[in-house]
């Protein structure tokens, strides 16, 4: 028996179950304790697990990630939250130089089993730096895993898998869909394996690869064009490691692909997927792979964000270009 939960509730539920099953798991960050998180992702945990395991920290991202690395090396399983993914940059050195590399540097003597959570992406009319989607930075850094759920069920299962993982995971939560819909989420801990994509809609004409909050407008675009184009939608879920088999399989079936992401186009993860597909499956490729993405500009403030973010119409136009090539 499960419960109908939103994505952010599922995150909370996952944290709760992970903390209940393993005393070494702890949560730390700005406003995660008494306040329950600015998106309420940690609501109730402070009361349930106490201030030693749900820790309000000073306002210092490098300090949060850096001390979490020390805790992870000492055998705890810290789950730091950065309030918005746009505020991970002050901790960037700790993330790429340490979280990612402690295992390599010490040849396995020290490891860094931790999960760095952050709400990410646009679409909520937030102030500047609150709408970042720079997953490509972390995908480009060896030693990290990068997971981005797009449904409540996945959010809980992937989060638990990430917390149990022995490597550091960047866990980006699409805040636009934190409360967009509900889904049945099982009680108790369960895992959704990291590194496995999910086919969200089967189709034979064109494969569209996406993740996070873009999954829904992509599915909407697919429905809107269902009369004349049969679109397959693959939600990557984990961007590092990539589920190469899944994307290659879908692409070899359809011969055409589009990629949808919020991040700027240039050097985004869409570039990697395209490069991988032509490497593996050029002989199946029937049209250029179209990237429908954010533009190569800083994410705009609220008044223009709808123009920046791919939405069903833009996605449909992009898919059609590929299909009609």
């Amino acid at each position, binding site marked *: 028996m499960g419960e109908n939960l939103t994505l952010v509730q599922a995150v909370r539920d996952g944290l709760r179950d992970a903390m209940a099953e393993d005393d070494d798991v702890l949560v730390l960050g*700005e*406003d995660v*304790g*008494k*306040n*329950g998180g*600015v998106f309420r992702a940690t609501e109730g945990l402070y009361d349930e697990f106490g201030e030693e395991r749900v820790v*309000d*920290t*000073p*306002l*210092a*991202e*490098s*300090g949060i990630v850096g001390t979490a690395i020390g805790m992870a090396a000492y055998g705890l399983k810290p789950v730091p939250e950065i309030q918005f993914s*746009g*505020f991970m*940059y*002050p901790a960037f050195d700790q993330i790429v130089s340490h979280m990612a590399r402690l295992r390599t540097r010490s040849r396995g003597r020290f490891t860094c089993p931790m999960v760095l959570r952050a709400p990410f992406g646009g679409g909520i*009319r*937030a*102030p*500047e*730096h*609150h709408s970042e989607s720079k997953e490509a930075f972390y995908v480009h850094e060896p030693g990290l895993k990068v997971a981005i759920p797009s449904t409540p069920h996945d959010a809980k299962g992937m989060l638990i898998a990430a917390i149990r993982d022995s490597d550091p995971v960047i866990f980006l939560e699409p805040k636009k869909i934190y409360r967009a819909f509900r889904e049945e989420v099982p009680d108790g801990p369960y895992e959704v394996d990291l590194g496995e994509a999910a086919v969200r809609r089967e189709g034979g004409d064109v494969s569209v690869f996406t993740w996070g909050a873009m999954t829904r407008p992509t599915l909407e675009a697919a429905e809107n064009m269902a009369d004349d184009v049969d679109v397959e939608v693959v939600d990557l879920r984990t961007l590092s490691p990539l589920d190469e088999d899944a994307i290659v399989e879908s692409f070899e079936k359809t011969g055409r692909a589009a990629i949808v992401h919020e991040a700027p*186009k*240039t050097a985004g993860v869409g570039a990697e997927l395209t490069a991988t597909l032509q490497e593996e499956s050029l002989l199946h490729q029937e049209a250029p792979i179209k990237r429908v993405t954010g*533009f*190569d*500009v*800083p994410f*705009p*403030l*609220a*008044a*223009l*964000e*709808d*123009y*920046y973010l791919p*939405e069903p*119409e*833009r996605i449909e*136009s992009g898919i059609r270009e590929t299909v009609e090539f």
Partner: protein
Amino acid sequence: MVRVLDEDGELVDGAEVPDLDDDELVEMYRTMKLARRFDERAVSLQRQGRIGTYPPLSGQEGAQVGSAMALGDGDWMVPSYREHAAALVQGLPLKQTLRLWMGDENGSHIPEGVNLFTVAVPIASQIPHATGLAWASKLKDERDKAFLCYFGDGATSEGDFHEGLNFAGVFDTPNVFFCNNNQWAISVPRERQTASKTLAQKAEAYGFEGVQVDGMDPLAVYKVTEEAVAKAKDPDEGELRPTMIEAVQYRFGAHTTADDPSVYREEEEVEKWKAKDPIPRLETFLQRTDRLDDDAITAIEEDVEDRVADAIAAAEETPRPDPVEMFRNAYAGMPQRLEEQLEWFESVRAEHGDEALLED
């Protein structure tokens, strides 16, 4: 802790009223009233969905207006996101503040001649900028400008606070670092932010002076800021130019309109601090010293009401910016790839129409 007025608006024993004439004192009061009224209206606009997330300042008018008024003509201000009143004193029209919180970058296009840097949201990241601005002025041999930088109590925990103040000490830049210690960083209380007894004492680490002032006493704030500004321009032999001011105050409202403070703090605490409200304090002082009477107060209230209403009307009349603006402002000239992206965007826009692209 430096104080000029006590909580009842009486002059503290031995304190002197800073060197402001009657008009200026009344202007200080008027600006604080204006800021308070603006704040109330902005919060209610947000509730009505007419502006986006908004960070209120009520309770902090004394610190903002007192310090901003201490700046001279050539001096610069580097704000955080909450200094709407300070920015107003410095010359930013209220309309622009509203436009910013309506999600329009044009709100941050500071008018030429207004020595105000743009709001940047990442906490403490503006502090090194302030040091750099002041350093540049010093390198240009200006020597007659001070650079005031605002940040919160929470900001003092960030690495950029440390690096920015340390550079200021080493390069002896004409800075005033003004910490609006409003007791809270969202839900994190001051005591959780650092084990240091005062925030002012953090200046010790950088070799320059730290001062604690009653931030809800606009006259005291004016005084310490004026002194810090003067020292920044012309320090005594052996003295370093920078100062860190900790203005002890309180945020009466929520952190932003997205925040619910009842989850993490007691109403009692709020009441305790409301007793120190800078506006009645200054009002009482001005009344008792015959600088202000009831008629003047009424006139000010009417004036303030009109000015806020005008700003709101002007902000709401401004159309949504053209999306081309976001393409045009990334670089001085638009790179080829971006031009191609803009072209594609315009073709999709033409095909589907704005209606389809804009969510409501």
